[in-house]
């Protein structure tokens, strides 16, 4: 599913995106109470038998959240797995609701930006 151009991960652009958006990522991660209310607002979660991987919180915690905690040092395989979460399991409809006001779509967008910076993106002709 994913485009594989670069053989290794180039951490410089990842770190740059993480640093530019540090406050937002940190705030999002610390505010998430794992209440799972966002799940009910995600049509993909509902239409995929409530698979937990479709929960908006799961998607941002396991992509941009993990990248932030690991300071961008992730393997290519890990980044490709993140690519599946942000591209295949989210359509960025921006309808996800967080009672604490976490801007989940923009955090998922950051995950997509990092994936794109490493040549990981969705291919529609495969």
């Amino acid at each position, binding site marked *: 599913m994913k*485009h594989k*151009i670069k053989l290794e991960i180039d951490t410089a652009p990842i770190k740059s995106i993480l640093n530019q958006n540090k406050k937002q990522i940190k705030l999002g991660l610390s505010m998430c109470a794992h209440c799972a209310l966002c799940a009910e607002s995600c049509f993909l979660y509902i239409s995929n038998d409530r698979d937990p991987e479709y929960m908006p919180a799961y998607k941002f915690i396991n992509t941009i959240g993990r990248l932030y905690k690991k300071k961008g040092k992730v393997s290519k395989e890990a980044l490709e797995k993140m690519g599946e979460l942000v591209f295949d399991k989210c359509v*960025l409809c*921006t309808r996800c609701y967080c009672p604490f006001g976490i801007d989940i*779509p*923009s955090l998922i*967008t950051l995950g*997509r*930006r990092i994936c*794109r910076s490493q040549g990981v*993106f*969705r*291919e*529609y*002709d495969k």
Partner: protein
Amino acid sequence: MIKAKLKPLDEILGYIEPYEKILILGCGGCVSVCLAGGQKEVRLLQSELASKLDQKKEVKQISGYTVERQCNQQYMKELDEIAQNVDCMLSMACGAGIQLLAERHHKHPVFPAVNTVAIGVDLDVGIYEERCRACGECVLAYTAGICPVTRCAKGLFNGPCGGTSGDRCEVSPDVMCAWHEIYVRLKAQNRLEDILKFQPPMEWKNQVKRTIVQAGYAHRYFKK
């Protein structure tokens, strides 16, 4: 979804001729799905332009970047810094995305790299067919789900015209008459009376910039 097609390379080269630093900007929305302007197509255009310029012995700095959606300001912020270092931008988004980009970066020349063709359906990978022109006056309820604006050569709301010949259109024997198809389907559904319901002419809303506000959101944007 919106369907687009890459412009001829020579046309694109003509746009960027006076500039040195060019940014090709892809969109992760509809144009990615129709394989016209996503990240992959940005890479392809980048290398095709580089090769053409190489043949002409011209040197330009061509970079590529893809945002999630060019039709939404929210996804354009990340571009602000990148745009400062380029002379012009080549957008691979649909017409709406290109215009929003040009509006946000009004000091930069913004050129289209694709032609926005239609709102269409996917026949297979890489092949699409027009189904809607977003006229804003949908009559599909009376036309058995066949759009006369898109499929009739004259875009007639009330048809067929005198040019129909059997099941073919007068413009070409290869073109089916949309109103014949409408007739056949309505007849099969036993509701031929719908073809006789007069549809008033379109108000040519395409001539003005239409704004869509969904029911339930009007109070946010309009004072009572």
